C-alpha cells in the first residue's frame, strides 16, 4: 500500500466519522433552533425536552424501565437466533423437509407479529413471557429464512472438498455449513434486531407495568409531553447504539467475508 492510498483511506475514515457525528449534530441543532420559540403544547422546545430528561430518566427509570426492556429484548432476540439458526440449518439441509414446511412458513411469515399480542395475552397473561414471545415471534422469521438460504447456498466444490476429506457430522456443521451461511445469517439477524426493538416497544405499549414503551405511553396519557419526547429520543438513541454494536460484532465475525469481497473487487 503506497503512502498516497494510506492518505486517501485515512481521509475517507475522517470524513466518514465527521459525517456520522456531524449529521446528527446538525439535525439536533436544526431541531433546537426551529422549536426554540414554540409555544405549542405538543411540540415543546427541544431545550425544555432536554431539561426534563435527567430528572425523568436518571432517577430510577433507567433500572425500572430501560433495563427490563433490554432484558426482554435480549432474551427474545437470543432465543429467536438460536431457534432460527437451528431450524434453518435443518430445513436448509433437506429439500423434502423444506418442501413440506414451506406453506406453513409462508403463512406464519405473512402474519404481522403485533397481531400475536392479543392472543399471547390471552394465553400467557401480560407478564414478561408474553413480551418475550412476541419478540421471538417477530425476530424468528428473518433469521430462519436467511439461514435456510445461506445453508442451501453452500458452494458445491467446497462441499465436495469437505466430503473428500471426510469432514462430516458436527465438524461439517462447524467448519463448513455455519461459516458458509454466516453472511446470510448475519443479514437475517440484522433485520431481526430492528424488528425485535419495534416489538419490544409495541408489546409494552399494549400491556405492561414497566418498560420504555410503557413509560412513553404513560407520559403521553398524563400529558407529560416533554418527558414523552425525551423517551422517544432515548429509544432512538438505544436503537442506534444497538445497531452500531451489531456492526462492530459482525465486522469481527465476518472479517474473512469482507476480505473476500474486497479482494474480488480488486482492491488491496
Amino acid at each position, binding site marked *: 500500500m503506497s503512502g498516497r492510498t494510506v492518505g486517501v483511506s485515512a481521509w475517507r475514515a475522517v470524513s466518514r466519522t465527521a459525517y456520522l457525528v456531524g449529521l446528527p449534530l446538525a439535525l439536533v441543532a436544526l431541531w433546537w433552533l426551529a422549536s426554540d420559540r414554540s409555544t405549542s403544547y405538543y411540540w415543546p422546545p427541544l431545550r425544555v425536552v432536554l431539561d426534563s430528561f435527567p430528572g425523568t430518566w436518571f432517577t430510577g427509570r433507567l433500572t425500572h424501565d430501560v433495563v427490563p426492556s433490554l432484558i426482554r429484548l435480549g432474551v427474545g432476540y437470543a432465543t429467536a437466533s438460536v431457534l432460527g439458526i437451528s431450524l434453518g440449518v435443518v430445513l436448509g439441509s433437506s429439500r423434502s423437509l423444506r418442501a413440506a414446511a414451506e406453506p406453513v412458513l409462508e403463512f406464519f411469515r405473512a402474519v404481522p407479529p403485533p397481531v400475536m399480542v392479543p392472543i399471547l395475552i390471552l394465553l400467557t397473561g401480560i407478564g414478561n413471557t408474553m413480551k418475550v414471545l412476541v419478540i421471538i415471534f417477530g425476530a424468528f422469521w428473518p433469521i430462519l429464512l436467511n439461514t435456510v438460504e445461506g445453508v442451501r447456498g453452500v458452494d458445491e*466444490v467446497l462441499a465436495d472438498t469437505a466430503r473428500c476429506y471426510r*469432514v462430516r457430522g458436527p465438524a461439517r456443521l462447524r467448519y463448513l455449513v455455519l461459516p458458509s451461511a454466516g453472511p446470510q445469517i448475519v443479514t437475517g439477524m440484522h433485520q431481526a434486531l430492528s424488528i425485535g426493538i419495534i416489538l419490544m416497544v409495541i408489546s409494552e405499549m399494549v400491556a405492561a407495568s414497566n418498560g420504555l414503551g410503557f413509560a412513553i405511553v404513560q407520559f403521553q396519557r398524563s400529558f407529560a409531553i416533554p418527558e414523552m419526547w425525551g423517551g422517544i429520543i432515548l429509544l432512538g438513541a438505544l436503537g442506534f447504539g444497538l445497531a452500531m454494536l451489531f456492526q462492530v460484532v459482525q465486522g469481527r465475525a465476518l472479517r474473512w467475508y469482507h476480505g473476500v469481497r474486497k479482494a474480488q473487487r480488486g482492491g488491496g
Partner: protein
Amino acid sequence: MLDVRSLRKVYEGAGRTVEAVQDLSFGVGKGEFVCILGPSGAGKTTLLKCIAGLLLPTAGEVMLQGRRVTEPPPGLAVVFQEYGRSLFPWMSCRRNVELPLRQKGLPKARRAELVEEALSAVGLGDVHDAYPWQLSGGMQQRVAIARAVAYEPAVLLMDEPFAAVDAQTRADLEDLIRSLWERLGMTILFVTHDIDEAVYLGQRVLVLSAAPTVVMEDLAVDLPPCRDQMATRSSRRFAELRAHLYEQIQAAKRGRR
C-alpha cells in the same frame, strides 16, 4: 491398487437422459502416475467424481485397495480445478491444511508437523496465517496441493488443477507435482485436456473418447523418468508422443470411439 470396471454413468434429467460415461475399464498400479486425457465434455470430471466416491455410478464399480467405493474412501485426496472454491475462505492456510488431519484424528503435535512440512514442500513456508483470498491463484492452488499432500493419501486425484493458472505458474506447479510424486510415491490420477501436460507429467496416458465415454487408448509414456521443462519438451520422443495424442484427440472430437 485402483480398478475401474465397466463403469457407466447416466444422468437422469427432466425428460431426458444423458449418457456421460458408457463403459470404462482400466487399472492403476500402486505408485503410478497416470494422466487422463480427453476432449472437453468427455466425462473426465464425472469419472473422477465416481472414483472419489462423490458420485455413484449407474453400473459397474470402482475398487480401491480391494474395496468397493461407495462414498469418499479414506486415504484419497482430491485437488480441484477451482482452487478459489475449494479452500475454506474463513480459515487461514494453516487451518485449511490442518482440517482434514484433525478429521483423521491425528494428535496436535503431529498435525503441526505435517502442516509445516507440506506448506514448505510447496514453497509456502511463510504464509501460514494468511487467508487464501490474500494469495494469488497459483499460491492458492499450492495451498490446496499442500492440503492434499499433508493428508498422506495413497491416491491423489487431480481434476485439471492447473487449468486456471497462468502458463509460467503452471510449469512451476507441474514440476512441483512431479517432484512430490517422486519423493512421496503416492498414486496420482491427473485429469487434463492439455496434451503437453499429459505427456510431460504422466507415466501413462489414458485417452478418453467424447461422451458417451470409452477408453480409446492406453499409452505408455516412454520418456526418461527425470523430466525437465526445457529438455523434455524439446526432445524428439516428446514431439512424437504429442503428435500421436493430438491425432487421437482430433479423432475423438470427430466421434471415433
